[in-house]
């Protein structure tokens, strides 16, 4: 959501204050309050490191030596194995400028098709669904403050009270206004406890719930026929799917009471309703269809394209929105252009001054990219920036083996992350407060982070690194080492594109407390476009589209050997793969070690006590972590946070089954078992 904050430095050191910014209005969680611990952190990387042979130790070298080495290895590997043998892996935490420059670097300097990013693990399903249903993907089609103005908010798969607490104030305001909150989650999370209705569904059954709700809406005539007729296409096909349920279906598939679902459906039909999703519903092999299923419900009820109504997705990563707009994705070019669209290609090639034939086509998605290592047409070298993929990828054991078999791994990071430990070359980066740059939050609001602190000697901006490497690949004149010049180019290149930034300037961002895309020049004065779809959706005919989607179950169902559902998520005090937050003392004090949550009824039977170390395993791997007993979880389900490394790495268990549309892995459910250790 991006909380505004001010940093101050005095003789006593750093201090921090929450800013009265439109998103957080002075609120902040402990990740914000403790973030200054990352400034002047003793573990920061301060010199490039090279490991000259596999298994050897790192040696600090000069930047020139490191970059010369990387460039010569890239060139050598590409000349032997072809251009696509070098891959680039970005991150949703990178600024817009870096995301843009990295995408351009891959296509223009390396001329490889193979770039993707960790947002594939995060936003890809919601993005794909938004594009299909509405013709555009912006997290929320409305500003966050609109949440407080709705009558009912239907939140599926989000634990925002833990993952982005300051956003709760908008939900508090909603409730003060008499609005209702409905939360869908297999766990009784702190967010679920805020809800008026909590639907504690079976993991991985969200799409069945969506279709059941559509069926109820049709049966009870809770549909807006005029809206369907004038602003949408494809209702008949979706309605047909809704006819495929039966008495007992909801209990069978979702594990919740049908009458409760009926009440919720009626509540949503009544007034202004918002449907908000997050990873809990999206990180599934049917994540895209799940989101489309709920969009079907919203469209059938006429709850879209009007103020205080609509579907939106809540972004977790720092720049989860902006990071997916400017060309880090394997199938995409800046401004949310499509890499296979001939017109889009021509526009971008023209801006970049490259010939159309030279511009690569679509590359491999994140999971396929990593899987391709060691395969005949696979990558042999990889540069990662802002991503700790041996922690964050599904089936992490296999990913580690793949990474270890690369000819060359280059990692840009602040710290010696678990992925950096496997690298041949580590390039130290600057962090958030040490350089300026823009980010785009879930509202499509482009924000600016200012430089407040000096970087440690030896760390460099990733933009500088990109330019310096491009120089060595003979393309140095096409890149800029600073954010402002890079942003000016991003503005020019996105002009006329779906995510149009052309009217957004650093000065305008300061003036408006952030500016919303799309923002062509004529919108600059108003701060961009706050609300999308009020007159038309983004498909050429202006209509939103229903998609017939159906629930087929999970990629892996529990069985006798692995009888439980296993699901993963975030916890309050940590963030993503933990590269940063696991290095903050105050955060580790409350959540320093991994754990697994299980229901007391299950624990009793297995004779597992609160606090003991247990072994949780799936067909792919095992972790040994502390058991936490809580009746907030279903007795058939285990939960573990995914921030941790080593024996606590939850992604050792997860299944790399992919959503066929978004290529999102099924992080949120697989089959597992739990046992006592040793004894």
């Amino acid at each position, binding site marked *: 959501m991006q909380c505004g904050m001010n940093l101050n430095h005095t003789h006593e050191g750093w201090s921090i204050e*929450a800013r009265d910014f439109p998103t957080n209005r*002075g*609120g*902040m*969680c*402990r990740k914000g*309050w403790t973030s200054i611990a990352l400034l002047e952190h003793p573990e920061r990387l301060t010199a490039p490191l090279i490991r000259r042979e596999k298994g050897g130790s790192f040696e600090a070298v000069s930047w020139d030596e490191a970059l010369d080495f990387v460039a010569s290895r890239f060139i050598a590997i590409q000349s032997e194995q072809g251009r696509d043998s070098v891959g680039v892996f970005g991150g949703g935490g990178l600024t817009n400028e870096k995301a843009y420059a990295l995408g351009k670097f891959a296509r223009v300097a390396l001329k490889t098709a193979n770039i993707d990013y960790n947002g594939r693990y995060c936003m890809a399903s919601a993005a794909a669904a938004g594009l299909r249903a509405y013709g555009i993907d912006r997290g929320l089609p409305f500003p966050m403050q609109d949440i407080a103005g709705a009558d009912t908010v239907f939140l599926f798969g989000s634990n925002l*009270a*833990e993952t982005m*607490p*300051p*956003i*709760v*104030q908008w939900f*508090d305001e909603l409730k003060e206004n008499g609005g209702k909150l409905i939360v869908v989650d297999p766990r009784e999370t*702190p967010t679920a406890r*805020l809800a008026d209705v909590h639907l504690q569904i*079976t993991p991985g059954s969200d799409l069945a719930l969506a279709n059941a709700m559509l069926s109820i809406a*049709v*049966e009870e005539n809770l549909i807006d026929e005029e809206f369907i007729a004038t602003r949408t296409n494809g209702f008949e*096909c979706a*309605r*047909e*799917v809704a*006819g*495929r*349920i*039966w*008495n*007992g*279906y*909801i*209990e*069978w598939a*979702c*594990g*919740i*009471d*049908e*009458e*409760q679902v009926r009440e919720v459906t009626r509540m949503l039909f009544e007034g202004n309703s918002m449907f908000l999703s997050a990873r809990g519903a999206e990180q599934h092999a049917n994540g895209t269809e799940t989101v489309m299923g709920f969009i079907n419900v919203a469209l059938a009820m006429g709850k879209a394209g009007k103020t205080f109504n609509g579907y939106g997705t809540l972004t977790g990563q720092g720049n989860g929105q902006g990071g997916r707009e400017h060309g880090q994705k394997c199938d995409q070019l800046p401004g949310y252009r499509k890499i296979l669209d001939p017109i889009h290609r021509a526009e971008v090639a023209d801006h970049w001054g490259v010939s159309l034939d030279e511009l690569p086509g679509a590359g491999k998605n994140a999971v396929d990219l990593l899987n391709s290592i060691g395969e005949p047409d696979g990558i042999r070298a990889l540069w990662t920036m802002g991503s700790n993929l041996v922690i964050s990828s599904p089936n992490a054991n296999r990913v580690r083996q793949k990474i270890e078999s690369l000819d060359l791994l280059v990692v840009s990071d602040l710290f010696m992350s678990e992925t950096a430990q496997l690298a041949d070359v580590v390039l130290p980066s600057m962090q958030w407060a040490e350089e300026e740059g823009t980010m785009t939050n879930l509202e499509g609001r482009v924000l600016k982070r200012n430089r407040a602190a000096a970087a440690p000697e030896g760390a460099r901006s990733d933009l500088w690194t990109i330019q310096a490497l491009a120089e060595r690949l003979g393309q140095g004149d096409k890149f800029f080492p600073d954010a402002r010049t890079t942003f000016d180019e991003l503005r020019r290149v996105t002009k006329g594109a779906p995510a149009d930034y052309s009217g957004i300037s650093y000065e305008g961002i300061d003036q408006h407390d952030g500016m919303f895309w799309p923002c062509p020049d004529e919108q600059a004065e108003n701060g961009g476009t706050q609300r999308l779809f009020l007159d038309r959706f983004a498909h050429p005919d202006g209509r939103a589209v229903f998609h017939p989607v*159906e629930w*087929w*179950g999970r990629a892996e169902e*529990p069985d006798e050997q692995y*009888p439980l559902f296993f699901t993963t998520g975030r916890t*309050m*005090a940590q963030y993503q793969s933990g590269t940063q937050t696991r290095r903050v003392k*105050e955060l580790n*004090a*409350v959540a320093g070690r991994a754990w697994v949550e299980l229901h007391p*009824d*299950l624990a*009793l*039977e297995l004779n597992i006590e609160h606090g003991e170390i247990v072994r949780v395993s799936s067909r792919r791997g095992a972790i040994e972590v502390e058991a936490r007993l809580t009746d907030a979880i*279903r*007795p*058939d389900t285990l939960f573990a946070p995914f921030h941790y490394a080593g024996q606590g790495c939850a992604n050792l268990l997860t299944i790399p089954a992919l959503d066929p549309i978004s290529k999102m892995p099924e992080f949120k459910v697989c089959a597992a078992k739990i046992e006592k250790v040793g004894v």
Partner: protein
Amino acid sequence: MGSATTVEMKQRLAIIGNGMAGARFCAELVARGGADRFDITIFGEEPGGAYNRILLSDVLNGSREAGAIETHSLDWFARNNITLRAGEKITFIDRDEKTLTSDRGRISHYDSLVLATGSRALVPPMDGLHSSDGERKKGIFVLRTLADCDRVANYARKATRAVVVGGGLLGLEAARGLMQHGAQVGVVHRSGCLMSAQLDQSSGDMLRHQMEMMGINVHLNKATTAILGDECAQGLAFRDGTELRADMVVLACGIVPNIELARDAGFEVNKGIEVDDALRVQGDENTFAIGECAEHQGQVYGLVAPAWEQARVLALRLSGHSPDALYTGSKTSTKLKVMGVELASIGTPREAEGDEVVTYAEPSKGRYKKLIIRDNRLKGAILLGDVRKAAVLQQAFDRSTPLPDERATLFFDIGRATNDIADFPDDATVCNCNGVSAGTLRATIQEGAASVETLMAQTKAGTGCGTCKSSLKALLAAKG
């Protein structure tokens, strides 16, 4: 576009039966990429696309339109490149030649065959089913297809007294549908317990009482021996010598698997077409059976969930997604709403010796709840009148999870103790976002913090999601 060679490489898959199992399998196979492997043809005896048979009673009682229960329209089959032969009945399977012959004389070849022939209504042997011309008497119906539904609805409008033979799930569903058409409705049942496959005697009695309160006459322990009337049905005669007048009769005495086609082709049949865990018909690598016509480990299921579970396994296997997927049997549950009376039945309704039984009964309100427990696992449950816990119980049954020691929580939502902030121990966390304990807050108040704002500024509590601000207020008040 596939080249000529890939088209040739595709196998021909024929599905006989376009009902709940056949259409579901077909859709799941396509969703899992099966169309890349197979050219699919599906044969349905009924005209039109596939529809949701379970919702027929909704159509009969008018709560849904016939069109609204269509699950896969003709257009759906066309869009997915599936050849649907609607209204064409397969009359013969030649296993050796791998051909199917239809009632239109068409012969088609297959490489793989899925039998999803379903079942039909059981018409028990009794006198007076037919009029003198050998046709079935007017006013006698079964309720199995959309066409049946039409006929029943049309006739019911003119009828004054309708009777349903069979007090099981299907019979009560039919009675529910008939009520809507103005006729006086009666239900006749052989045994002394309605829905005896799903209910025990106590709940059966309670259900009967409620049905009667709503104006349905329930006649138990009545074995129907004959249908009265010459050309038209005029009533029923029972073994005990009594009679019941009615001008229309709906037979809901159960279902019979459609196994004749398979049997005539030489496949092993028993009650149903026998299949193994791969859903393969005995002794034939490329022939499969799913749904109500299939018999797996001695079980023939008459419900949707098992049919869909079988369809899933077969689609996983044939699509190549998981060629080793196995079907190991289904756990059955039913849920029904009859004229506002809700009931759910999970697993077995009757306990065996040594089982733990927990019951709750409130006859005056028509509420009854029963659990049958073995080895701390749910073996069966009945919920009548209040079915809110059906979902939780069904999941506990389906996944065989251990049950809570406090059995009452399986019947009721038992509220948790309310937390009074004043009683919080010092080490309890008040602000989850910023990890501030009650002790820290008390100490800060002790040191002079007198307002919520000061507490927030000094401790950071309440600066995240803000939901603990009321607790801060309460702590300040407790102090004052």
